[in-house]
C-alpha cells in the first residue's frame, strides 16, 4: 500500500517532534572519521637524548611513532632540567622536519651566491673536499685551511681540534657565545673557566643583567632553582634583577632594579662600599683566602692601594647613585640584603661584560662574591670540572703539520687579557692580506648574519677560494659556499653534550639518533673521521676511529673506569650518591662496560652529584694561592692598554652620549625563543616570539610610550632603526618597561622573507680593549618612519 499524502505528512511531523524533544546533545549524526585504506596503528617508542638546540644541553625524551619524531619532552632524570623543557626545545620537531632543510650535499654552479646548486652524493662531496685538502698539504701549506666553529663543545670540538692539529692548521677560529667571565676568573682565581653558580642552594641571587629565565646559559637551571629548590626544603632563593630594561627575568624576580646602561660595575662597587663600611663582609674568608683587600707596600717601596681603600674612597653611595640612577637607599638595602641572606651569589650577565669597561665591570660584580666568601661553598660560585671521559689518542704530527702549526694562528694573539673577538680578527687579517686562507670550513657559524662586522666577513670570504659549509640550512654564509655538506640535525646524530659551565656539576649528556637520518646529510663528525682516514699517514693515526658513535663509546670508558659518579637518575638516587661519595664510598652499578653503555644510552648520560668544597684548587690557582681582588696581571694589562694603573677606577670614565642625530640609546638583547642565526627558525616560534600579544613573524623595537608619543609614532607602526652604521626595519612596540631614552631591539629575529634583523650590526664598533668583547649598549640611534 502506498502511503497517502496525509499519512506521509503525519509521519514526518511526528518524527520531527520526537527528534526535537530528545536531548539534542546526543542525536545529531556525525560520520565516524574514516581511516585511510591500509592504515595500521604505528609502533611507538620513547627515546632519551640530549637537546642540542642551544648551549644549555638539557636532557630530552622523544616520542617516535612509526619512525617519525612527534613530540619532545624533558628527561626527568637529567639533573639540570629535571623533566622541564623550554619552548625552543619543544619546537625542535619543526626544525627536524623544516621544509627549507638542505636535502643533499650541494656543489655551487655559476657565480658565488647565485643560488644555483648541483646535488651530489655524500661520497662525491667528501672526495671534492679531500682532494682540496690533499693539495694544500702537498703544497706545504696546511695552515691555509681554517675552521670557523660556532658553538662547538665536547667530542666534536676535540675531533675538530685534533684534525686541524694533525693536518697542520693552527686556524681553529672560535665564533661562539662569549661572556668574558672566564677572563675574570683567570685574573682573580687563576682558573681559566667560566664560573658555575649553585643557584639551587643559594638564598639570594643578585643578577647583574643576566637573563636567567630567558636566554641565559641555561634557563632551565634557573627555573629549577626558582621552582624546585629541593636542597633548601622548597624555599626559593630571593632573585633580584639589576637590568637596563624591564625583561621577563626582571618581571619574575622578586625585585627589579632599573639601571643606566654600562653602569653595572659601578653599582656593584657601590654595594661593596656599603658592605665594607658596615663591616658586613666575611672577614675570616677575606683574611684567609683573599689578597689585594688591604693596602700594601710593593717591592719598590710604593704604597699600593687595596680594594677596601679604593672602594671607600671612590664609590660612595651618593656618587654611585648619581652614576647609575639607582637611589641611595636602594643601594644600601641591596647591600644589606646581599650580605645578610647568605649564601648569596652575584651573577654577571653578558650585558655587563659586553661594554667598553666590561672586564672591569665583570671583576667588580664578582668581587661581591669574594667579599662574602661565596666561592667554593654550597650556594656560591663553584668551579665545575669536565666529565672524566677517556681522552682522544695523542695527535701525531708529521713535518708538514709541524711547519703549518708553527706559522701561528691568523689574526695574532688577541687583546691584552681576553681571547675574545678572534673571529673578527681573523676576518680582518684575511681582508688585509696578512694571511692567506685557501679553504674555510664553516661549522655552525654564520658570520654574514650574526657578526658585528658582516662587511668585513663578506670581503674576507671573497678572498677565500674554497668555502665549505656543514650547515643543514642555506643560511646567509652557506649561500656563499662552494660546497655544502649538510650535517645531520640534532635528533638524527650521535653527540655528547655537557651542560654549560654555569651548571657546576659534571654531566656527560648523550644525544643519540631518535629517527633514521636517511641519506640527506652526513654527520660532520663522521665526515671529519672519514677525511682523516682518507688523508692517511699521521692524520689517520691521530683519529683512528671507525665512526663518531664508536668514538663516543670509547670515551665513555673513562666514565666507567673513574669509580665515581652515576648514570642519570632521579632525585633520590642523586642524593644517595652524593651522600655516599661525601663519605668516601662508591658502589659499582655495572660490572661490565657493555651493560653500562646500554644503560647510559637508555638514561641519557652520566653525572656526579658530589662537589668537593674542601679542595683548595677549586678556590684559587694563583701564584699566591689566594683570590686576587686587585690582580697584578690586570694592572699590567690596563697600563699596557693605556688605561692607567688604577684598576677599577676607570669604570666610570666612559661617557657615551646622545646627539641630535642619534638621540636614543640602543639596547640589543637575546630572546629565549629564537636562534642565533645558524639554525632555521621554527614556525611556532616565529609566529609568537614574545609575550607581546600582537607581534608575529616581524622584528620589533621596544619604545617607551612617552618617547613614541613625542616622535609621533603609534604602536605597531613600522620604523627604521638608524645608527651611524646602518639601519634595520622593525615594528614599533610601545612598552613602558623601556627607559625613555633607550630603545630595545631583540636579537635573533628574522623578517618573514628570512633575512636576519641583527641589532649588533648597528653597533658603533666600540669594544673593551682589555678583553676584546664588543660594547653592546654604547650605540645611539634614531627612529624614522618606514
Amino acid at each position, binding site marked *: 500500500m502506498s502511503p497517502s499524502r496525509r499519512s506521509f505528512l503525519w509521519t514526518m511531523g511526528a518524527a520531527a517532534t520526537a527528534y526535537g524533544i530528545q536531548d539534542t546533545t546526543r542525536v545529531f549524526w556525525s560520520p565516524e572519521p574514516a581511516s585511510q585504506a591500509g592504515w595500521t596503528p604505528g609502533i611507538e617508542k620513547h627515546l632519551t637524548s640530549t637537546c642540542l638546540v642551544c648551549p644549555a644541553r638539557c636532557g630530552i625524551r622523544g616520542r617516535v611513532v612509526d619512525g*617519525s619524531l*612527534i613530540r619532545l619532552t*624533558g628527561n626527568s632524570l637529567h639533573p639540570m632540567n629535571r623533566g*622541564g623543557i623550554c619552548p625552543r*626545545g619543544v619546537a625542535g620537531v619543526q626544525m627536524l*622536519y623544516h621544509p627549507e632543510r638542505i636535502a643533499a650535499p650541494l656543489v655551487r654552479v655559476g657565480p658565488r651566491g647565485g643560488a644555483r646548486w648541483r646535488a651530489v652524493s655524500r661520497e662525491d662531496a667528501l672526495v671534492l673536499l679531500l682532494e682540496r685538502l690533499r693539495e694544500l698539504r702537498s703544497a706545504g701549506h696546511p695552515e691555509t685551511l681554517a675552521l670557523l666553529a660556532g658553538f662547538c663543545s665536547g667530542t666534536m670540538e676535540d675531533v675538530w681540534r685534533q684534525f686541524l692539529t694533525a693536518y697542520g692548521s693552527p686556524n681553529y677560529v672560535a665564533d661562539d657565545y662569549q661572556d668574558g667571565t672566564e677572563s675574570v676568573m683567570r685574573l682573580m682565581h687563576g682558573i681559566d673557566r667560566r664560573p658555575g653558580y649553585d643557584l639551587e642552594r643559594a638564598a639570594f641571587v643578585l643578577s647583574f643583567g643576566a637573563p636567567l629565565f630567558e636566554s641565559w646559559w641555561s634557563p632551565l637551571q634557573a627555573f629549577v632553582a626558582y621552582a624546585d629548590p629541593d636542597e633548601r626544603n622548597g624555599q626559593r632563593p630571593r632573585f633580584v634583577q639589576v637590568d637596563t630594561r624591564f625583561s621577563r627575568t626582571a618581571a619574575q624576580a*622578586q625585585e*627589579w632594579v632599573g639601571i643606566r646602561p654600562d653602569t653595572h660595575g659601578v653599582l656593584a662597587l657601590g654595594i661593596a662600599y656599603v658592605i665594607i663600611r658596615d663591616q658586613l663582609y666575611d672577614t675570616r674568608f677575606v683574611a684567609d683566602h683573599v689578597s689585594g683587600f688591604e693596602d700594601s707596600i710593593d717591592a719598590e717601596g710604593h704604597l699600593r692601594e687595596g680594594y677596601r681603600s679604593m672602594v671607600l674612597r671612590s664609590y660612595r653611595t651618593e656618587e654611585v647613585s648619581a652614576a647609575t640612577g639607582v637611589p641611595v637607599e636602594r643601594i644600601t638595602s641591596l647591600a644589606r640584603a646581599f650580605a645578610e641572606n647568605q649564601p648569596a651569589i652575584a651573577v654577571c650577565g653578558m650585558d655587563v661584560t659586553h661594554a667598553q669597561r666590561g672586564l672591569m665591570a665583570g671583576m667588580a660584580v664578582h668581587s661581591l662574591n669574594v667579599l662574602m666568601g661565596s666561592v667554593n661553598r654550597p650556594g656560591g660560585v663553584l668551579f665545575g670540572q669536565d666529565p672524566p671521559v677517556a681522552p682522544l689518542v695523542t695527535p701525531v704530527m708529521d713535518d708538514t703539520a709541524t711547519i703549518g702549526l708553527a706559522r701561528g694562528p691568523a689574526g695574532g694573539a688577541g687583546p691584552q687579557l681576553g681571547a675574545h673577538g678572534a673571529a673578527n680578527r681573523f676576518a680582518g687579517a684575511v681582508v688585509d692580506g696578512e694571511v692567506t686562507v685557501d679553504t674555510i670550513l664553516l661549522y655552525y657559524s654564520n658570520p654574514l648574519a650574526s657578526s658585528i662586522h658582516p662587511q668585513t666577513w663578506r670581503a674576507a670570504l671573497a678572498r677565500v677560494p674554497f668555502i665549505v659549509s656543514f650547515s643543514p640550512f642555506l643560511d646567509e654564509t652557506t649561500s656563499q659556499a662552494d660546497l655544502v655538506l649538510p650535517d645531520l640535525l640534532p635528533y638524527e646524530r650521535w653527540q655528547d653534550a655537557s651542560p654549560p659551565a654555569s651548571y657546576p656539576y659534571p654531566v656527560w649528556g648523550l644525544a643519540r639518533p631518535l629517527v633514521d637520518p636517511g641519506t640527506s646529510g652526513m654527520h660532520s663528525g663522521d665526515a671529519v673521521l672519514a677525511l682523516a682516514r682518507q688523508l692517511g699517514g699521521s692524520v689517520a693515526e691521530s683519529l683512528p676511529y671507525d665512526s663518531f658513535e664508536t668514538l663516543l663509546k670509547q670515551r665513555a670508558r673513562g666514565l666507567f673506569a673513574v669509580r665515581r659518579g652515576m648514570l642519570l637518575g632521579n632525585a633520590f638516587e642523586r642524593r644517595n650518591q652524593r651522600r655516599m661519595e661525601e663519605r668516601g664510598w662508591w658502589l659499582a652499578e655495572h660490572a661490565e662496560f657493555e651493560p653500562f653503555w646500554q644503560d647510559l644510552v637508555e638514561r641519557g648520560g652520566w653525572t656526579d652529584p658530589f662537589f668537593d668544597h674542601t679542595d683548595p684548587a677549586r678556590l684559587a690557582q694563583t701564584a699566591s694561592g689566594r683570590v686576587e681582588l686587585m690582580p697584578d696581571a690586570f694592572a699590567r694589562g690596563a697600563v699596557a692598554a693605556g688605561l692607567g694603573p688604577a684598576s677599577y677606577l676607570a669604570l666610570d670614565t666612559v661617557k657615551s652620549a646622545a646627539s641630535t642625530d642619534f638621540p636614543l640609546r640602543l639596547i640589543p638583547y637575546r630572546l629565549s625563543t629564537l636562534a642565533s642565526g645558524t639554525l632555521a627558525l621554527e614556525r611556532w616560534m616565529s609566529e609568537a616570539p614574545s609575550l607581546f600579544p600582537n607581534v608575529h613573524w616581524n622584528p620589533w623595537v621596544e619604545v617607551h610610550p612617552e618617547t613614541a608619543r613625542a616622535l609621533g609614532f603609534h604602536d605597531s607602526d613600522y620604523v627604521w632603526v638608524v645608527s651611524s652604521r646602518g639601519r634595520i626595519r622593525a615594528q614599533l612596540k610601545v612598552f*613602558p618597561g623601556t627607559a625613555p631614552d633607550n630603545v630595545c631591539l631583540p636579537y635573533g629575529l628574522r623578517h618573514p622573507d628570512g633575512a636576519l634583523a641583527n641589532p649588533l650590526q648597528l653597533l658603533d664598533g666600540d669594544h673593551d680593549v682589555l678583553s676584546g668583547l664588543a660594547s653592546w649598549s654604547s650605540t645611539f640611534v634614531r627612529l624614522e618612519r618606514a
Partner: protein
Amino acid sequence: MRERARIVTRWGMVIDLDRCTGCVACEVACKSENNIATVPPDQAAMGRAKSWMKVVAEVEGEFPDTSLHFYPRPCMQCDNPPCVKVCPVAATYINDEGTVAQIYARCIGCRYCANACPYTVKYFNWYGPEWADSERQHLNPDVSVRPKGVIEKCTFCHHRLQQAREDARAEGRVLREEDYQPACQEACPTAAIVFGDLENSTHRVRQLKDDPRSMRLMEDLGTAPKVYYLRPRE
C-alpha cells in the same frame, strides 16, 4: 530529556602564578601535541593565530616602576559554559567529565561560540591548515587536524585520557593521577601547572583549588571555570 549521568569525575587545572615564569613552553607543547598550524603573517596580524594555550601578559606602571603579570590561559572548561548554550548544532558540548569538547564534523563555523566565550579561547579556522610535506611527519597521529571553517579549542588533551584509560584497563588497575597529564603540564619546567580530578580528594588539584591564593578568571560571570589560578605570593 534524559538525566545526565551523575558526574563522578571533573577534570580541572590549577595554575600557580607564583611559579610561572612566562617561558611559553606550555604554548609550544600544546601546539606540538595538538597539531596546531601556524597562519601566514598577514593572517596573524589580523589576530587569526591559534594558540589553545596562550600566555597572556599585562604590564603595569612605567620605567623604572614597572611590573608585568602573566598567566597561561587555556580553555577554562566552564561548568556553565556560555559557548555550549549558543551553539545551534550542538557541536560544542560539555561531556560527562566536565570537559567542554568540540565535534569538528558537526561544527558549521557560525562562530557564535567564539563570540560568546568571555575568555576568547575558541579559535576559528579561516583557512585549512598549511603544512609543508616534510612537516606532516611531526603531526601527532592521536589528534585530528581541523579543516577550514570550524572552531577549535583546548580539549585538556582528551586523547591522552583515552590512551591512559586503555593502558590502565590493559594493566588491570585504576587510573592514577599521573597517568593523565595534558601536554602543557608535562612541559612546564617549573611545575606551575597541576592537573587532575577536582572531585577526587587525593588529587593535588583538589587540594590546591581550595588554597587561600586560589581564584578563577571572571568568576562574577557565573561561568564556573574549572581552571583555577593561585595568585603570586607577596
